[in-house]
């Protein structure tokens, strides 16, 4: 099904937001999601992002992969023998997805209620006039022991914080990062380790592009057989396990 062309694409707050929107357009019960159909619509939508040359968050792609996974499992003939313990059955996958959608929807609903409160509250202005001159002497001298260096650091701290937020609001052309460079960096980081979670590895990543590049670097090492990957649950921690078979040097 082709999406009607819109001049401006609706922006969604994340994959769950988009998914809920698609479900509500179908006027279907959240418990009755037709996975095949919803998956197709979801993918169409993500495609249309690309048509409009918008960045797609990794989260959107991850959800696409999850949906495809559930759909694919649905299509496969049922196994006779009990499934591998690690395997999530299509039914379970669907249930997990629905449970998470419901959890998200609850907060989305309540945030609507909170928005109304916030807007009503914004009409009340508290008195915030500061102290009258006559009482000013009661406050301890806040300049006591203050050095110029500290004043400078204080400014930088409060001003830098602001800069970061401004940048997040702006649309900035991502600077190209080299996967090779990150592969090298990653090898360096993993040296002497048995295992590390992707989250820990990317703790210091400051933007999405860096995060994605790091992820690609992990995949590259996996392809080369240098590491194994593990994930206990959908959206769970991705563990990078260093392959310590003899002869393999990371």
């Amino acid at each position, binding site marked *: 099904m082709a999406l009607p062309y819109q001049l401006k694409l609706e922006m969604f707050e994340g994959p769950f937001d988009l998914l809920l929107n698609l479900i*509500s357009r179908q006027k279907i019960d959240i418990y009755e999601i037709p996975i095949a159909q919803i998956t197709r619509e979801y993918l169409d939508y993500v495609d249309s992002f690309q048509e409009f040359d918008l960045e797609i968050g990794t989260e959107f792609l991850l959800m696409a992969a999850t949906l495809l996974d559930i759909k694919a499992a649905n299509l496969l003939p049922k196994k006779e023998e009990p499934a591998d313990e690690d395997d999530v059955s299509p039914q379970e996958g669907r249930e997990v997805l629905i449970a998470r959608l*419901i959890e998200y929807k609850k907060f989305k609903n*309540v945030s609507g209620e909170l928005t109304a409160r916030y807007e009503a*509250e914004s009409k009340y202005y508290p008195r915030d006039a500061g*102290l009258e001159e006559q009482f000013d002497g009661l406050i301890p001298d806040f300049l006591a022991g203050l050095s110029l260096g500290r004043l400078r650091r204080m400014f930088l701290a409060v001003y830098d914080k602001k800069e*970061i937020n401004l940048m997040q609001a702006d649309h900035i052309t991502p600077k190209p990062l080299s996967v090779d460079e990150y592969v090298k960096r990653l090898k360096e980081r993993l040296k002497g380790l048995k295992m590390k*979670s992707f989250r820990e590895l990317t703790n210091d990543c400051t933007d*999405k592009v860096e995060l994605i590049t790091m992820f690609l670097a992990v995949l590259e090492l996996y392809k080369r057989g240098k590491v194994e990957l593990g994930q206990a649950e959908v959206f769970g921690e991705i563990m990078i396990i260093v392959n310590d078979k003899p002869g393999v040097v990371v």
Partner: protein
Amino acid sequence: MSDLKVRLRSIVEALLFISDQPLSKAKIVSVVDIPEEEVNQILTDLTNEYSRADRGFQLREVAGGYRLYSHPAYASYIEKLILSFDHRRLTQAALETLSIIAYKQPVTRADIASIRGVNSDGVVNTLINRGLIKELGKQDAPGQPILYGTTNRFLESFGLRSLNELPPLDEFSPDDPTF
């Protein structure tokens, strides 16, 4: 009202007037040195008096204390007089994130991302800068992630006396088949 009563009422009013944060009953009790029941009576009297006489301000109980606010009916005039930065609109993402933190606190960034399905670090930083959330400590788990919770400013911004006044989350379950 007796002279003494008027005097006590005026003292409490003066304290509320100069305070730039909600005043707890305990604070009033300790500064004015009268029993809590009397403080209760005075606060009720003041609240009623202001509303009966159509004053330009109101007394409200928020975030664990009492604070004077301008009357909401005159907000448009106040906006004309001052530029308010406390009340810049919050985005949907910010409100979603704030809701999750309010109901699930203490939570980590990972908890929030997992419920919203997207990385929410930028939004969390914005909420910290706006003074609506704060770090509560570290979780005793690998990586020791930081735990976040709401502040008193959050309660004030939403006109809540305490977190107990948040509407129960269960009422917001999506039980309607058409959503």
